[in-house]
């Protein structure tokens, strides 16, 4: 039965040793160790959270970039379209203006031509009247010489005048 009877000496020494061990380890080992482990776990958790956040942020930025790119592309297309429109407008305007100008110039030319024509006609008429007067004078001169001849001449001249 010796095995089953606790020895007072062992109980005494073990109580003291164990309490001492408990005190020393609790104070100088378990406290810093548990604290360090807890802190590291927290920091790892935080790091993981941060990584997750960074990932999300990255995704957000990427999608934002894409959005921006899309917008930029759309804007570019718009600008191009507008430019095209402006170009077309310009061309059209220029064409129209050219048309108008051309028409105006043609009109002007026509007027000028008419004017010139009128002037020329006046001139011709003056010439004709001058010629007529000359002829008349010549005819008169001839008439004065030969009445029949004068008459014939006046007749021809007049015929010519008509043709003119």
């Amino acid at each position: 039965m010796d095995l089953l009877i606790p020895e007072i000496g062992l109980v005494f020494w073990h109580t003291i040793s164990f309490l001492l061990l408990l005190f020393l380890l609790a104070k100088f080992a378990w406290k810093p160790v548990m604290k360090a482990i807890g802190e590291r776990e927290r920091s790892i958790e935080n790091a993981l959270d941060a990584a997750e956040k960074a990932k999300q942020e990255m995704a957000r930025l990427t999608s934002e970039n894409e959005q921006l790119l899309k917008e930029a592309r759309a804007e570019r297309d718009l600008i191009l379209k507008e430019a095209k429109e402006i170009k077309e407008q310009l061309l059209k305007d220029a064409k129209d203006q050219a048309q108008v100008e051309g028409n105006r110039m043609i009109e002007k030319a026509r007027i000028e031509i008419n004017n010139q024509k009128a002037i020329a006609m006046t001139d011709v008429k003056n010439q004709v009247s001058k010629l007529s007067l000359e002829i008349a004078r010549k005819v008169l001169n001839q008439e004065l010489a030969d009445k029949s001849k004068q008459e014939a001449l006046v007749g021809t001249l007049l015929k010519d005048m008509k043709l003119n």
Partner: protein
Amino acid sequence: MKFSHFLTSKKIGILAFLAVFFTFLNVNAQNHGQEHATDSAVVEQVETGHHDSHEEKKFDINTFIFHHIGDSYEFHFWGHGENWTGLYLPVILYTPNGLVCFSSKEFHLNDDGSVVVEKAGMRFAKAHGKIYYAAEEAVHGSYVHHEKNDKGKEVVTNTRPLDFSITKNVFTIFFSVALLLVIFLTVASGYKKREGKAPKGLQSVLEPIIIFVRDDIAKPNLGHKYERFMPYLLTVFFFIWINNMLGLVPFFPGGANVTGNIAITMVLAVFTLIIILFNGNKYYWGHIFNPPVPWWLKPLMIPVEIFGIFTKPFALMIRLFANITAGHILVLSLLCLVFIFSSLAVAPVSVFFVVFIGAIELLVAFIQAFIFTILSALFIGMAIEEHADH
């Protein structure tokens, strides 16, 4: 009760089975051993009082085994008789004449009470690994007398002084305390040096175990209040574990059967009991003094509940003691096969089984530390559990 989570794992289940198996095996061995030890060989030897060569030749396995698993005043390294090599440990006795200290060398390794040491006017003799006040007269050359008690067993009639000697077990306790301090102060300094960084060396070996104690023992049983009990649980766990392992080392400074000694397991169990009693909340005490049973059952239940306070640590005490002692007896018995058969041919078989059991004991060393700690945590958890209904 939250036992289920560690029975779900198949591996742990098998280990638990093995542990239980060896507990039973062990208890048997112990009973046989004790009866024989006290009945026959040892006492006979002492009574006859002469250790002649004829007696020494006859190898007494019970004496051998119980000498090894018991305590002693010397730390034996190797050799016998003239070639005995070992450490004589100090004897400290508390007597009516004050403290008496002397080296155990003065007994000249005598263990049958035939050598008397006189100190402070008192005479001491050592028999069966214990120190007694020596009797006036020697009987059969021994100053330690025996008498048959009612059960027919030989008991020593001499009285004993209060014995505070630094025995083999006390020495090993001191050694393991020092070892634990060195190990864990080193580990703690590692945490200070490499703050927030990955563990290194010893630190990385022990950190998973510390986290295991925290996450698998403390947290599931103690809930959010686990932090208060962590120092105790960790200390108990590592103390038991390291002493279990030291017990498996067959030579100095191991070999002492510290956790297989009832005094040690008793002190540890008492610590758990004290923690339970000081931390038990009103639900715990309410359950004991006002159990939720019909009124006429209360006179029966209250004593049962009060008894229950003490059975839990008692079970802790016996479980650890029995398991570790069993392991030691098993290993030693297997080794003794060589001497029983008096043949070297048995040695390979014997060694094979010893290695096999040794490997299992290595597991048992961990499991018993784990079980003691988890049951302590469980009992504390039951005492601090917050619940209105039951």
